[in-house]
């Protein structure tokens, strides 16, 4: 550092040379064409029945694989392995990247990766949201009008896939990466390069999915059921590659989190003192590590069916679409708890701070999180209640699905009892947490209808189930995602967010979220089928209402975006070290957290929830580096 400081300053564009995002994109595009023409050289213009069709699935796969590899080479992910092979000693040099360019390149500082995730995921969240707006535009009329039918299906698929793929890392990516090392008193994650890799693979995946529109899109929605998957346009290959890449990213992210929490806790941080957020991350990570590989496997089978014309899912040649449905939901149901569990954890982490009371029933809360992640493995066939698969197992899946409401109820009980007799302050993060109770209650209770086979026959595949999972995932994950943003972004960036705009954002989002999705329960009961712009005329009023609410919900998101840009780029009011009077350890560090987190490793003497139990114990030893780096 001192040598660099002594050297004359280089022009700003000098930083663009070297291994960074720009190089990654250039090499990624190059790798794409190498793969495309390489596959053409191997297989000719087409591997299908007739040689005169320039839609060669193999070329698309190899092109995108080449593109992703080129992207990672350009970012510098291969430098270190090559250096090690050439005999250089192990090091963590990438961590010392500094200046703004570190946000656009491979950086092994967990705090930089956290902020990269926040902006990267945010970008794709807004693209997914834009798709939702376009879907609702089409739904303004009861027949196909605004977009061609095939395009509408692509929009539905893009929205679902984008949200389910990207938002799986919505809380673990930005917040767990940033906070878990700090919360457990460590200076880094267990595998910092893998941590960076998970982010950049996710960004590459996002690029793969958005470019599906150049290959005709895909008609299957986010579930991608064959045989429709097998017969679909080449854009389907983008879906397969996207989800497989997301699966790789999820597996690595989960492994990294588990390793970090298991091995890198500071002295004194016993399992019963671990912040509940870390427990939530741990249970989610276990699900990620075990579920995502199933997804990768099933998508590989789908890709083989499409390129090499194997017959895993082709009933005519001895395969079965049930195989896909089974394997997909073996991943798919833990997946929805991968989305929901971090939300539980954020709510339980934030409630004590704003209710000024200890977390009530810590062990029960942990049991709830672990119980949900355990039970989520035994419920997947409730997605297939009417599919004709294993008819005799339906009573079992009905029971297991309803059993999962018991550990979910633990979270409710612990949260409600934490509020009880508290001294509640309605700050913006707290409002989002309270909204979680409201949304998840409706999401959960509507789930009772879907878990029961006789009433599921009415509601299966209708807008009812669509409203149900938007209540649980948008109401459960996205609301807590915003709670986490309002709570921790001042800590992460060092700048305060505007409270008044935050409250406007909350109330508009809460009202229009409910106004958008509550009527869809009724629409589903009245027989509106999912994933179609066509509905009967008597549902027009409901759908118009929902569409207008959805547009207002979109405006609410723009208010948030304005708040973010306005507060972080223009007002720049410095955040205090501990704006919420929290006892958690990250608020004992300055805002933003210095590069090496702690000068000396902290020693914990209790959990961070001792509100009303005397003055806050200061676990960070004196002598930590102060102020901005």
């Amino acid at each position: 550092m001192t040598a660099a400081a002594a050297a004359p300053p280089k022009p700003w564009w000098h930083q663009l040379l070297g291994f960074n995002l720009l190089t990654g994109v250039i090499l990624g595009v190059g790798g794409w064409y190498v793969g495309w023409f390489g596959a053409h050289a191997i297989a000719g213009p087409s591997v299908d029945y007739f040689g005169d069709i320039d839609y060669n699935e193999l070329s698309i796969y190899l092109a995108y694989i080449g593109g992703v590899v080129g992207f990672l080479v350009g970012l510098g992910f291969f430098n270190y392995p090559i250096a090690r092979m050439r005999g250089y000693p192990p090091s963590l040099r990438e961590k010392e990247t500094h200046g703004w360019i570190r946000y656009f390149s491979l950086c092994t500082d967990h705090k930089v990766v956290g902020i990269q995730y926040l902006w990267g995921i945010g970008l794709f969240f807004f693209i997914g949201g834009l798709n939702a707006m376009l879907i609702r535009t089409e739904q303004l009329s009861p027949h196909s009008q605004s977009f061609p039918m095939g395009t509408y299906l692509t929009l539905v698929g893009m929205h679902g896939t984008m949200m389910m793929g990207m938002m799986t890392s919505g809380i673990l990516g930005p917040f767990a990466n940033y906070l878990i090392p700090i919360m457990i008193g460590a200076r880094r994650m267990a595998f910092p390069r893998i941590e960076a890799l998970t982010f950049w693979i996710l960004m590459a995946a996002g690029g793969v999915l958005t470019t599906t529109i150049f290959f005709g899109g895909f008609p299957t929605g986010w579930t991608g059921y064959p045989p429709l998957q097998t017969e679909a346009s080449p854009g389907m290959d983008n879906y397969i590659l996207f989800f497989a890449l997301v699966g790789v990213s999820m597996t690595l992210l989960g492994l990294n989190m588990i390793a970090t929490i298991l091995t890198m806790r500071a002295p004194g941080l016993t399992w019963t003192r671990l912040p509940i957020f870390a427990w939530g991350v741990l249970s989610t990570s276990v699900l990620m590590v075990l579920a995502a590989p199933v997804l990768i496997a099933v998508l590989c089978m789908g890709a083989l069916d499409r390129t090499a014309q194997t017959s895993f899912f082709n009933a005519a040649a001895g395969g079965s679409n049930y195989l896909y449905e089974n394997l997909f939901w073996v991943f798919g149901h833990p997946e929805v708890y991968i989305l929901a569990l971090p939300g539980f954890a954020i709510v339980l982490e934030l409630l004590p701070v704003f209710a000024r009371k200890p977390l009530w029933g810590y062990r029960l809360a942990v049991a709830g999180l672990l119980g949900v992640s355990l039970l989520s493995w035994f419920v997947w066939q409730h997605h297939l209640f009417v599919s004709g698969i294993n008819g005799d197992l339906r009573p079992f899946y009905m029971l297991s699905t309803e059993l999962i409401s018991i550990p979910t109820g633990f979270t409710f009980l612990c949260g409600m009892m934490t509020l009880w007799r508290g001294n509640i302050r309605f700050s913006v993060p707290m409002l989002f947490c309270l909204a979680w109770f409201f949304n998840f209650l409706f999401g959960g209770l509507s789930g009772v209808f879907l878990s029961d086979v006789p009433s599921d026959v009415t509601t299966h595949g209708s807008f009812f189930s669509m409203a149900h999972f938007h209540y649980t995932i948008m109401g459960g994950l996205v609301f807590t995602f915003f709670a986490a943003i309002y709570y921790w972004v001042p800590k992460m960036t060092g700048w305060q967010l505007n409270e008044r705009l935050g409250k406007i954002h909350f109330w508009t989002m809460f009202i229009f979220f409910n106004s958008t999705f509550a009527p869809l329960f009724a629409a589903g009961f009245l027989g509106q089928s999912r994933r179609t712009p066509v509905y009967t005329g008597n549902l027009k009023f409901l759908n118009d209402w929902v569409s207008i609410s959805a547009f207002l919900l979109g405006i609410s998101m723009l208010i948030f975006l304005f708040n973010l840009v306005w507060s972080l780029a223009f007002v720049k009011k410095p955040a205090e070290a501990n704006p919420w009077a929290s006892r958690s350890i990250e608020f004992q560090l300055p805002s933003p957290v210095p590069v090496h987190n702690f000068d000396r490793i902290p020693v914990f003497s209790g959990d961070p929830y001792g509100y009303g139990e005397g003055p806050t114990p200061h676990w960070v030893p004196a002598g930590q580096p102060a102020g901005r780096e």
Partner: protein
Amino acid sequence: MASEPTAARPPHDSTNHGLRVIVAWLVLSAIATPLIVIFVGHLIPPGDASTQGTEQVFDNTWMLGIITPILCLLAVFFFYGLRSFHAAPGSAVVDGPPLRNDSRIQILWIVITSTMVLFLAGFGTYELLQNGAGGGQGPNPIAVPAGHKMQVQVIGQQWQFTYRYPSLGNIESNQLVLPADTYVELHVTSLDVVHSFWAYELGVKADANPGTDNVAFVRTKGPGTFHVRCAELCGLWHGYMFNNGRVVDSAQFQSWASQAKKTYASIKPFMDKPESQGGAPFSHIYLPAPDRRAG
């Protein structure tokens, strides 16, 4: 705000908040549950067009009756709690009482939720095993109603459902016509991708899978019409894959059947024999011959 919260606790609050919440909850539930069950319950679809539809309405009404007290509990708790336990705006940060646990409440909560869950699962299983509740049960149904059943084959194809009547000489129609007051055994299959046969008013939903025979049972009631639509994304015209079906009385059904036999006589030689008469299972799958230029 950032200053250390005052260690001083608020003066001990002797009000029995818990009792108030429980009393308010019991009163509200006692009023709301019967009102909702009586006035909202019967409005729930799918309606009264078939035995299965009636059972689903009954089932949905029970569910509503069970979730209403839960909704009431949360409503009372949050209404009361957020009004009583909040700090005055702008006041200094004061910690609440450090209550960390109460095993009695935990045990009570676990017992209540477990009982409800087990009851719901038992109730659902009982309802399901009576006659399958109109859902697709796969090729080997476990909930088979007793008595005579008329077989109808539902064939999903991109993008139309057609219906074959093995008992009427294997005629096929693109409109589902069923006799009134009859138990119908639907065999749902698909020729290409996954569809889902949803006869909305009859309360029937069964996925149509290629190569699989998915059986569902429904007992029609009086004459009327019903909607059929596809409930599983099956490609471009998924949304347009709907039609009306009819339930007609037995005399009308006989005349419709004899008329249809005449109408479709010309293509009868090309139809497969029904499975019950030694023909191949209908779920055979078409593959385009690779040596012929498809088109």
